[in-house]
């Protein structure tokens, strides 16, 4: 008798991005970084990165200048609220999607 293989199905998930889909579509407002005000962008030095630290969704890069992954940014606005330089503005998503087209 052939040996049967058991337990071919269990709920074991594998890590990967986008379980919730492209959560960028959840956004009502979009963060726009003003690189003239943004401290690492302006000084070209590794500095500040408050937006990177506080982002709940890991969509801000710790780079000079910081960049936001809009595919997944849910548009909470924490980065804008907490930016010590006031460099991030939340703008209407609708106005931006229009521009992209």
């Amino acid at each position, binding site marked *: 008798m052939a040996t049967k293989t058991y337990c071919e199905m269990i*709920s074991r998930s594998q890590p990967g991005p986008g*379980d919730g889909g492209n959560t960028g579509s959840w956004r009502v407002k979009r963060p726009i970084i003003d690189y003239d005000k943004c401290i690492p962008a302006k000084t070209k030095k590794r500095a500040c990165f408050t937006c990177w630290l506080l982002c*709940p969704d890991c969509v801000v890069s710790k780079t000079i200048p910081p960049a936001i992954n809009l595919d997944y940014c849910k548009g909470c606005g924490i980065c804008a609220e907490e930016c010590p330089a006031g460099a991030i503005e939340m703008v209407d998503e609708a106005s931006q999607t229009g521009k992209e087209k």
Partner: protein
Amino acid sequence: MAEKTTILNLTEEEFVHSGNRACTGCGLSIVYRIGLKALGKNSVLVVPPSCLTVLQGLYPVASTKLPCVNVTFASTAAAATGVRSAMMALGKDDVNVVAWAGDGGTSDIGIQALSGACERGDNIIYICYDNEAYMNTGVQRSGTTPQGVLTTTTPIKGKLQVKKDVPAIIAAHGIPYVATASAAFPLDFYDKVKKATTIHGPKYIHVHTPCPPGWGFDTRYTIKVGKLAVETGLFDLYEIENGSFSLSAPSQRLVGKKRPPVSDYFAAQGRFKSLDTDMVNTIQQQVDAKWAA
């Protein structure tokens, strides 16, 4: 004492994937992301039903890059003990075994198992993220919901009872490390989790975690509201190491200083709107008395 972590030296390695199902502006997302950085790769998570279950992803996709076992609501700490005992049996005792549960899962249904693990001295880290109600099921009151808070099961008068002091209950077990933290002070939280990984025995970290939909504030204010809870003196950040109590920097700074009134914190959220002036004054007096002591 270990160097304080700064934004600049904080690791860039992420253990949570973007595009997960957490709510916009989720306080848990912040503490989870930062906490996993502190734990590092060589860790195993134990998670009961909670918002984290959803954040972590629906089968077959996981948003967490660490191994994790989802367990029943009441069993979190015991399951962590189970993972630890297996790791000991397998000679892999350098693994961090970390239970990560919500306030309901900790203060209510899970407290028996947590108490058991603490009494046994099991070598686990238990992190309770306290968003002060059953948020995953739609904002029902929990043992740690503060007095006066409107929830879907305290919809008119607000919760009548005071918040259960879970860290004090756990500290009474005499475990080597108890700490409180806040999502609004992620680096302080990071350092506490990091410290917990270096201590043998049960470690308990209770992290105050603002929730925009459950608390009734705009998503951009998650950090602001969390800071207010600390700065008004309502939620204190401290450590109890081998029985020795010390205030952490964000709370220590307030000693001898004028604190903003608790009404600032209440006014920033919708959930306190049933509080009358008398009640606000009473709470302010309680907080003042606590800080005078």
